[in-house]
């Protein structure tokens, strides 16, 4: 396979997965500019190793690379700034006529954004990307039992903070 054929195949197989890659990156690094960089870096890394033998689907493979690129970045960011500088998650959802729905969406985003990284990662992979425990385990490089317990705790925390937000709204 020459480089041009490799590029054509890569573009056909991998670029359609950009929405998945971006959503994961955006939830991990929590801002648009970094998410763009992460996705680009991940695609370049993936291209470099594309064509080798893989024991997983293309999507799980790409998301593993995205996750690794993001975690590398987050580690560096933590070294540089002692306090976590979580930017407010801007609500860039499509325009909604229903204001209630819009505030609901902002609340869900804020709740997920405030979860610890490891819980947020498994929730995005499971609920948004709908991956299996095995795939999530490969992507996050932890045993399936750990995936399971992170999901359980992440769900409980998320349910709890959503409940609190709703109660606050009612007061």
């Amino acid at each position: 396979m020459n480089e041009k054929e490799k590029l054509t195949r890569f573009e056909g197989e991998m670029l359609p997965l950009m929405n998945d890659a971006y959503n994961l990156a955006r939830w991990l690094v929590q801002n648009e500019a970094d998410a763009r960089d992460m996705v680009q870096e991940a695609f370049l890394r993936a291209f470099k190793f594309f064509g080798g033998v893989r024991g997983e689907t293309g999507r799980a493979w790409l998301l593993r690379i995205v996750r690794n690129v993001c975690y590398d970045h987050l580690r560096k960011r933590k070294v540089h700034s002692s306090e976590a500088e979580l930017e407010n998650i801007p609500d860039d959802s499509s325009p909604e006529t229903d204001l209630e729905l819009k505030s609901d969406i902002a609340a869900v985003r804020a709740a997920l954004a405030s979860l610890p990284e490891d819980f947020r990662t498994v929730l995005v992979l499971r609920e948004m990307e709908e991956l299996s425990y095995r795939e999530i385990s490969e992507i996050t490089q932890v045993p399936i039992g750990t995936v399971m317990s992170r999901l359980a705790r992440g769900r409980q925390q998320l349910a709890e903070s959503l409940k609190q937000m709703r109660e606050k709204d009612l007061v």
Partner: protein
Amino acid sequence: MTCAELHEQLDPFFDNELGLAEAQKIQQHLEQCPACEAEYAARLAVRQALQKPEVQFTPPSDLLDQIQAELLKQVRPAPQRKWSLPRFEFPPWLLPSLAGAAAGLVLWLGSNLFLTGNRSSNSLLATVTAQLVSDHMRSLLPDHLTDVVSTDQHTVKPWFAGKLSFSPPVYDLADHGFKLIGGRLDYLGNQEIAAVVFQHGRHFINLFVWPKNESAYPPSTLVQKEGFNIIGWEANGLTMCAITDAAPDTLKIFVELQKQSRMSAE
């Protein structure tokens, strides 16, 4: 099955990761135990919240183009046409001589243009076209494409205002796949002209603009030269000429969008 035992398996049950026999036991327990049923309902609410499409993020519209352009830099295909080389393909040692050759060509063309009243219109047209091609080629050399880099038309347009006696129209057509990436001053003969630069996938488009001038008009129908597609038109006393290595149909769409943007702006 106790509630504690169920708790251990509630998430894999919810995620369809259990075998049939275990799943049935859980199902039976949930039907009889309101407390565990509430736990299950809470997970369902979380799932429904997270699966709303508006909660998830979609990539910015230009990210795909950007990644494709970066990927293309990873492969170095054999050159197809002498002058259609994308800008990253020039080996560094060749750059000074290429730039010199292009500059020389411009000087030579410039000295002929605007000075030759008795040239036939055909050869005048050919001269203008050749010079715009060389402007375009030179712009593809590293770091020659833009003097002002911005995807914002409200940045690019004022930048020209301080430098030219006329005001080129600058429309961002990113929604249509033609991303504004900046502007540059260039020359046609001795005259300073505006170059508004767009990107379409991995192709660049130079939109040259200058005040209407009897001795410098571009081809009014699409022509091909040196592997580039070129077409010109006039609008409000300005002459416009777009040039690119993108496909002829792509260029026609671009020109149509430019004309429409102008009409809707008026």
